[in-house]
């Protein structure tokens, strides 16, 4: 079963991870069955049902879409690709700046759809990101294409006939989506909000940078020595005794937020890394007696 060239070309360009998973994945035959008139039937343990009904699929999707609350500039996770019919309905109604992260549980089914249906227009819609297969961080990398700091709403759009088929998988994926998006938004916001400050600080420190040796000079300086990386996590206090013992035998590298705690406890780190350009981030270091 070969993917339709138009679908494949877009996957290659926009969703290479999905294409890799389809090519490399091993999956069983899907429980979906095609019927005449593009109706799709799902035969699971609980019985057989049509994912868009078997009477008026377009009408059913209109009903579904009209009940949704899609905000302008919102970002939503959607469960299941189906035949793409519900997603087409969704995109038709959604604003140009809305985003949809579509996750499909069944790689076998996704391959079947991509082999039988030309959904290239859907796949090429910039508002849509597609993912499938094992739930892990890689699945969400496509989210970085979006201007995450500008999102006005984050949520889940549920199409129950598909959600119910893979409920536990989708619950896991949705939970991860919300977690990942939260972290990614913070990262984007930090990058954008601090970009001016970074630029300013870079210019201010340019004279030092020019004279400062390249990091490459440290190559092999600590050869064969163990390195301990210290961050300001909740276990830092519990690790102080270990660090006191290790400080003479290992290279202690810390981030700026852990610096003060280490100094207070008589551990002077060999290297401190500070990337945060905001003044308050440096307060712990600049206090009298700490340098």
């Amino acid at each position, binding site marked *: 079963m070969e993917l339709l060239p138009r679908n494949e070309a877009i996957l290659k360009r926009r969703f290479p991870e999905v294409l890799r998973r389809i090519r490399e994945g091993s999956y069983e035959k899907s429980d979906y069955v095609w019927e005449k008139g593009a109706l799709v039937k799902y035969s699971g343990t609980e019985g057989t049902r049509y994912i868009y*009904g078997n*009477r008026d699929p377009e009408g*059913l999707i209109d009903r*579904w879409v009209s009940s949704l609350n899609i905000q302008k500039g919102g970002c939503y996770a959607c469960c299941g690709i189906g035949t793409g019919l519900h997603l087409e309905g969704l995109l038709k109604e959604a604003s140009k700046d809305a985003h949809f992260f579509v996750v499909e549980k069944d790689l076998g089914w996704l391959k079947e759809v991509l082999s039988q249906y030309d959904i290239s227009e859907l796949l090429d819609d910039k508002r849509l990101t597609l993912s499938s297969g094992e739930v892990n961080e890689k699945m969400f990398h496509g989210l970085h294409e979006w201007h995450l700091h500008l999102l006005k709403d984050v949520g889940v759009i549920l199409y*129950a006939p598909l959600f*119910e088929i893979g409920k536990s998988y989708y619950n896991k994926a949705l939970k991860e989506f919300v977690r990942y998006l939260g972290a990614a938004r913070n990262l984007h916001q930090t990058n954008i909000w601090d970009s001016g400050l970074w630029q300013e600080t870079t210019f201010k420190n340019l004279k030092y940078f020019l004279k400062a040796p390249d990091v490459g000079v440290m190559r092999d300086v600590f050869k064969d020595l163990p390195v301990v990386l210290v961050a300001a996590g909740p276990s830092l206090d519990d690790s102080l005794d270990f660090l006191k013992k290790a400080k003479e035998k290992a290279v202690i590298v810390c981030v700026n937020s852990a610096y003060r705690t280490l100094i207070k406890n008589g551990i002077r780190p060999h290297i401190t890394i500070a990337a945060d350009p905001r003044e308050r981030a440096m307060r712990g270091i600049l206090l009298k007696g700490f340098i």
Partner: protein
Amino acid sequence: MSDVYLDSEKVTFNGDEPQNVRGVIEVLTRYLQENGRLVAEARVDGVDIVNLKEEAYLKSFGRIDVVSNTEEEYLSGWVKQVSRDVSVLDRDMVSFSEEILNKPWDENTGRGKEILEGFVPILRLIEGLVFYGKQKEAEWIDELKEQLKGYRGSLNLYTSALALKDPASMSDIVALDLLPALRKTFALIEGPILAHFQRKPCDHGAPAS
């Protein structure tokens, strides 16, 4: 000493006076039927008979008040009572046919059952109207009978979809079958059928032989 009042007039029984509630209601029902009327309301010592426990029907009483209606008055009252709940059911069905598609199944099963229960009084009313319409050879009887048959078919499919946890079918059955049927039925009931009840008693047609 037990007293029975029918439409606020004290009843005098010919022969043996019934000694319990059931006996009184049976005698009065027979009497009213012969006069083209029926028991619309009854209170036993101030308690509505519908709230009475079964054993109380076989007990003696102090006073029974019975209000009678013509069949048409009774059915009109019944129609109005059910119509009040139909607008709520209509609204619920519209939102249910959408929400069954956009919420997890578990959040909707309770509502699915409520919709089903919402049809119980409607079907009872239709059955009552069909019974009356047959007797009176009313012009709307065939249409109403057909609708009743349609409801039975759609509700069977609905129950199967509920058991199968099939949101798409449930949404279709509600939006494409039950909702239009309900609107059609109440257009018929609140139009030609209520108009039929409001005609003069002599225009209601003869009972079937």
